[in-house]
């Protein structure tokens, strides 16, 4: 059976070039980057090369990159490393759970947290942000690109507001990296989270950009790795893979691959909207990353649709992978005003570099057939149509 994978926002397959770069780290170049001997030095040099590659992706100095185990750790390190009990934090209602639940925990330990509402496209209003800043505000954490709808927040404006108010600005850029250019200087952020596996790198590797001069309390204590900001022997293959993935991601902005992805996504989205009744695109009309489309199929159970499509060879999801199996409909979609039923009827399609025009054609053939079958069996749809 043909299988097409359109869940690249959950995780994306490793590129062969990335794997080739990682391979030696499992065998001959296995040294501990902190060791004095040749093997250690070899690994140190590989880690530092990766640091440069990642720094280039976001336009910062290599010393400002801290390697982590991924997006969740980066977000947690940014928040818990900076914020102390009594501080005030501003975030949004549409953050990834790595930020949202960290903020809930901050509230429990005595921090004030403001969750900014969003508009119908899941966008934060910069004026709301301005109004939320108060004397004790320590940090603003706003997601760069939303993992569910792909909507891009006005990070440049947010960074300006934060800088003018002299408040730290963190952004979770896990879903933005490799899809839109990132420049920490332009957006004036102090902290920025990256994960390798959302840009065709390995799972379990990520980085946090920490602007020079930003003092972070570490979360892990041990050796003096990562300039004492993150103890623990470096995940060498992961870091090397992240570096290579970052390098390829950066090339994507000039070699046409991002445009190709955007064209495929648009083709998919336009034809679903054209070919099926009672569908809508979530966050349509707002700037979005080029690989993601989130579509509501009214009167459907997204969960049943994901299963039905999976059995027919298509991998998609109802939203964040971490939310699957949860009771609540997507907090992102409900925050932007969708009813719980419509939120549950929404599917996320996220493309990656490996996807082809033939993949999209396969999907366009499959979706109408599955939607028709599900709606034929849906008591709600029968009522609506009548």
């Amino acid at each position: 059976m043909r299988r097409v994978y359109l869940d690249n926002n959950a995780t994306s397959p490793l590129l062969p070039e990335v794997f080739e770069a990682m391979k030696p780290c499992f065998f001959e170049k296995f040294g501990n980057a902190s060791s004095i001997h040749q093997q250690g030095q070899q690994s140190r040099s590989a880690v530092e090369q990766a640091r440069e590659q990642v720094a280039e992706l976001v336009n910062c100095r290599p010393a400002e990159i801290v390697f982590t185990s991924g997006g969740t750790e980066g977000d947690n390190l940014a928040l818990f490393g900076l914020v102390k009990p009594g501080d005030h934090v501003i975030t949004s209602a549409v953050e990834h759970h790595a930020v949202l639940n960290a903020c809930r925990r901050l509230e429990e330990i005595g921090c004030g947290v403001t969750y900014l509402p969003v508009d119908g496209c899941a966008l934060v209003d910069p004026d709301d942000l301005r109004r939320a800043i108060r004397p004790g505000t320590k940090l603003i954490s706003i997601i760069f690109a939303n993992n569910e709808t792909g909507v891009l927040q006005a990070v440049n404006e947010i960074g300006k507001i934060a800088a003018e108010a002299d408040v730290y600005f963190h952004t979770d850029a896990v879903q933005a990296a490799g899809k839109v250019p990132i420049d920490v200087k332009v957006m004036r952020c102090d902290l920025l989270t990256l994960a390798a596996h959302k840009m065709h790198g390995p799972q379990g590797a990520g980085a946090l950009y920490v602007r020079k001069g930003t003092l972070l309390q570490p979360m892990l204590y041990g050796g003096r790795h990562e300039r004492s900001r993150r103890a623990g022997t470096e995940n060498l293959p992961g870091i090397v893979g992240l570096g290579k993935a970052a390098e390829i991601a950066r090339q994507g902005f000039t070699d046409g691959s991002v445009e190709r992805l955007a064209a495929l996504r648009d083709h998919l989205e336009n034809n679903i909207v054209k070919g099926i009744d009672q569908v809508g695109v979530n966050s349509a009309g707002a700037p979005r990353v080029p690989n993601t489309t989130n579509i509501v199929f009214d009167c459907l159970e997204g969960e049943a649709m994901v299963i039905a499509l999976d059995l027919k060879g298509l991998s998609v999801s109802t939203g964040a992978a971490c939310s699957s199996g949860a009771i609540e409909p997507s907090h992102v979609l409900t925050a932007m005003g969708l009813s719980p039923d419509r939120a549950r009827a929404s599917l996320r399609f996220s493309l990656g570099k490996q996807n082809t025009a033939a993949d999209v054609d396969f999907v366009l053939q499959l979706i109408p057939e599955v939607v028709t079958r599900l709606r034929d069996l849906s008591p709600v749809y029968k009522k609506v149509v009548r």
Partner: protein
Amino acid sequence: MSHENQTVAVAMSGGVDSSTVAALLCERGYKIIGLTLQLWNQRRLSSHDGMPEAVQGRCCSIDDVYDARHVADKLGIPYYVVNQESRFEHDVVRPFVEEYLSGRTPIPCSLCNNHLKFDQLLVTARQIGADLLATGHYARNEYDERSGRWLLKRPADRSKDQTYFLFGLTQEQLSRTLFPLGEMCKPEVREEAKRTGLRLFEKPDSQEICFIPGGDYKKFLDAYLEEQGEEIPDTSGELVTTTGEVVGTHSGIHNFTVGQRKGLGVATGSPLYVLEIRGDKHQVVVGAGEDLLSCTLRAKKLNWLSIADLREPIRVHAKIRHRHEAAPATVEKRGDDEVLVTFDAPQRAITPGQAVVFYEGDVVVGGGWIC
């Protein structure tokens, strides 16, 4: 016989029965999709006083989902967890709580079968391309050419008979359901589980209501209502005898069920039993054991299986609770959706809120809810 073209969704709870169903149907050549209904978060009320932590061996505990997934892996079948927690709460848990608060004794398993397992799950099964749904219930179903109806019948293993909980199924649901364990007895099922290589063949049976770990429904009511920010309505009142004499007071009608002997808080020479709960007056009627005996009951919200409708009085064996030996009775219509059931001999502790199910030999004629 080959079933290569038929796709069957198997409702897998992680227990021996449904796991064996999946294994057997695989052997018979069906295309199988494993589904587990996630109905209740077992940790949800565990922080409340007196509620035990989630216990193993019931559906929806994390361990059971692992067990079901393990079986699916072993059999090489696609497997999915379908979340129906909000519907379960709305259609099963809420009514369960409200029944108790109004002085009746509910059976959530029947509601779950009617609203979740054979309704929602069957719809999901068809939506994902399965023609049939198979479950690990001990029951049999077959199409009767003569009447043109689908019949629900008692299983070969009478000691595991679950037809009492299945009387609410529709003809459509029965026609799309497989009960592969209907002809087997439990030791055989465990034997088959072992033979097909399922490591959980010795896993103990689950007995209690799945969302009430420890089986203490009063603690559950307290914890659930507290979580909901609701107070248990004050239904405290009098304990009275059949002649109206007040013999004591009680703290709320939800603490009682018909036939109950313990916890009445009244000391008399002879044992006292709860005979009746008068929800409107907050009264609990108590009396001697023999006063629990009654020959008649009324039932509503009827569902007929082997017959299209009840026109004339019929002779049946009627069962008034899961562990009751069905007794000879006559059923006759009383109004649009109500019947009068008259037993040949008095029955003990007929309890409002429970189901009454009518049998003709092995065949389930229909049933309704005791009012």
